[in-house]
């Protein structure tokens, strides 16, 4: 029971430090759910993130996966609510007043300050996932090929991910 509360609280504060999107919180989330609390293994975490990527809706739904792994359906429900409810209250509150404050000099400064922080955090998120997912020439080649395909072509991301899976299945046996 107390671990369920710790988990719910952990996802709540993690959601509040999501600056620049969900990817930016991945390094800290991995630290909390894998290293500190052991709710999932590093492999399960990156697989959960991959499944969330293949699922409709925000990729942050990886928390639903972690919650389910740690505490079943109740864990999944609480992890999801803790992640999305508090931040949604903040967003509604700000959205209602944004039209008025957005031209304020400090709002402009905040926008200029926060966007690059979000990009730095997202890059760290990509780095964290790469450390867990890429460990040999084959996985590195798949990541590179996926990146090149998505950068140049108008290919569907989901197709690229599935093809990466097929390549892994063929080459990693």
């Amino acid at each position, binding site marked *: 029971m107390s671990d369920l509360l710790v988990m719910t609280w952990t996802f709540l504060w993690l959601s509040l*430090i999501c600056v*620049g*999107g969900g*990817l930016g919180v991945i390094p*800290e989330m991995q*630290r909390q759910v894998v290293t500190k609390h052991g709710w999932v293994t590093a492999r399960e975490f990156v697989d959960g993130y*991959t499944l*969330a*990527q293949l*699922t*409709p*809706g*925000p990729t*942050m*739904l990886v928390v639903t*996966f972690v919650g389910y792994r740690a505490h079943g*359906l109740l864990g*999944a429900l609480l992890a*999801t609510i803790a*992640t*999305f409810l508090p*931040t*949604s209250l*903040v*967003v509604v509150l*700000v959205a209602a007043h944004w039209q008025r404050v957005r031209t304020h000099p400090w709002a*402009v*400064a905040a926008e*200029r*300050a*926060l*966007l*690059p*922080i*979000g990009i*730095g955090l*997202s*890059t*760290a998120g*990509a*780095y964290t*996932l*790469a450390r867990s*997912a890429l460990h040999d020439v084959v*996985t590195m080649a*798949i*990541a*590179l090929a*996926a*990146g090149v395909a998505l950068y140049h072509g108008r290919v569907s*991301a*989901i197709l*690229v991910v599935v093809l*990466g*899976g097929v*390549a*892994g*299945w063929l080459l*990693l*046996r």
Partner: protein
Amino acid sequence: VSEPLSVARVVRVFTLTGILSIGGGRAAFFYDALVTRRGWMRVEEFLQDFTVAQLLPGATFANLSITLGHRLAGVAGAFGGLVAVIVPGGVILIVLAAIYLARGLTPDVATLMRGMSAAVVGLVAITTVRMARPALVSARSIAIAVVTFVAVGPLHVNTPLAIAVMTVVGLWLNRPGRDGASGDRA
């Protein structure tokens, strides 16, 4: 645009759009559904909502469903929009998690997952590059991004601390009055 839409209509359209939006660049699906196809809002309104969604804490896609829902149908539209994009994916993910965890991974599934995870790394890297290009317009914004990355990534500095320090530094570097209101210089 002028008269609010019914919450039920927002929920219906958001559910459909949410289910279709898989993979990278998910905001583009909403742009297409709300601006291009239905003309429910202007481009500038969408971009403004996207900026708020990105600036505030939380997953950008979830935040975007809130800001767009709020614009279209008020507070009820905001929460209706959020639930519409969260619930279908959440249910699917629980089913996938149950399958993944119950059977354990056979060697075939394990190699499939490893290949897909590797491709996801390529996907998030490209998504980050796309996000970075329009935002990193000045030397100081590049410096903030690089320092944040190095601290939180390779150096494992804890994220709340990094955000707190970099926010103070970023606000100071961009403080009102510095280079006037003319914007960033490269």
